[in-house]
């Protein structure tokens, strides 16, 4: 017992997360140098296009997050595994942070390119809906309920929310709007060092996402442990109170008189 306490650290880090963190920091440094100093400006959008090395990588990581959330939800419905449910909620939260960043970088990029921060373009509208859907998932997750009810409810919401992911991706093909076509597709024109920097940015973003996901998974696991311990304590206290009430009820009442 003493040995276990000495070897298990009081945090969510491990050797794996330290390696992931270091690789992410080094990768971010390389992408920053390549994206801001080495690659040239875009022929059409000029220097504003340098936001692509940020906007697309966070968007790709977001999609992976929502994909994992869906997988975790399906697996929970199938196997009722706590591990998969924790994957789903962790991936949804980290994915939502990345969605917010995609939205913000898109708006910042939109101002010098389109002249406005926001327009009700099909991509932007479906994307903001995606943000709200996963925000709703996390809200549903926090509604007070039995663990199984909470997990089932949130799993169905996750499956519903994921329907919007392919709609967001295809929105630029289905409707005409201000947003440019998909950057990474068979018909895209990006090439050379710009393409290399973008792909590297995506890889680094995914490694960073994994770092967040592992830590958030462990936090969610610990939250459940604390909640279960609190529940067990409350049940023990109620049982003790009930036993005490039974004892008091069976004891004869003694009337005192002077």
């Amino acid at each position, binding site marked *: 017992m003493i040995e*276990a*306490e000495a*070897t*298990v*650290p*009081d*945090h*969510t*880090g*491990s050797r*794996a997360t330290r390696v992931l963190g270091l690789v992410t920091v080094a990768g*971010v440094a390389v992408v*920053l140098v390549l994206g*801001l100093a080495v690659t040239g400006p875009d022929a059409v959008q*000029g*220097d*504003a296009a*340098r*936001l692509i090395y*940020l*906007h697309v990588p*966070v968007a790709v990581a977001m999609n992976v997050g929502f994909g994992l959330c869906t997988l975790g939800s399906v697996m929970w419905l199938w196997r009722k595994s706590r591990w998969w449910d924790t994957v789903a909620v962790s991936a949804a939260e980290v994915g939502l*942070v990345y969605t*917010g*960043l995609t939205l*913000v*970088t898109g708006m*910042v*990029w939109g*101002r*010098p390119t389109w002249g406005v921060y926001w327009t009700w373009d099909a991509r932007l509208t479906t994307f903001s809906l995606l943000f709200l859907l996963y925000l709703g998932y996390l809200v549903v997750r926090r509604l007070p309920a039995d663990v199984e009810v909470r997990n089932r409810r949130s799993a169905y919401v996750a499956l519903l929310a994921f329907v919007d992911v392919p709609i967001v991706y295809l929105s630029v093909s289905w409707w005409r709007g201000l947003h440019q076509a998909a950057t990474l597709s068979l018909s895209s024109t990006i090439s050379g060092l710009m393409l290399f920097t973008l792909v590297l940015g995506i890889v680094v973003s995914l490694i*960073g996402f994994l770092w*967040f996901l592992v*830590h*958030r998974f*462990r*936090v969610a*696991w*610990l*939250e459940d*442990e*604390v909640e279960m*311990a609190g529940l067990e304590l409350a049940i023990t206290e109620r049982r003790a109170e009930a036993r005490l009430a039974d004892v008091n009820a069976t004891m004869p009442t003694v009337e005192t008189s002077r």
Partner: protein
Amino acid sequence: MTAWGYVTVGYVLVFAVLFAYGVHVLVKGRSLSKQVPPENRRWM
């Protein structure tokens, strides 16, 4: 604002948010770890 101004705002915002979120997750993890016995938080 110039194009470089927007680029700077975008990069600073993203890294500031990710840094803040990272700190939030790590601090929460440390706080919760103290409430859970070691045998229930063995990470690989």
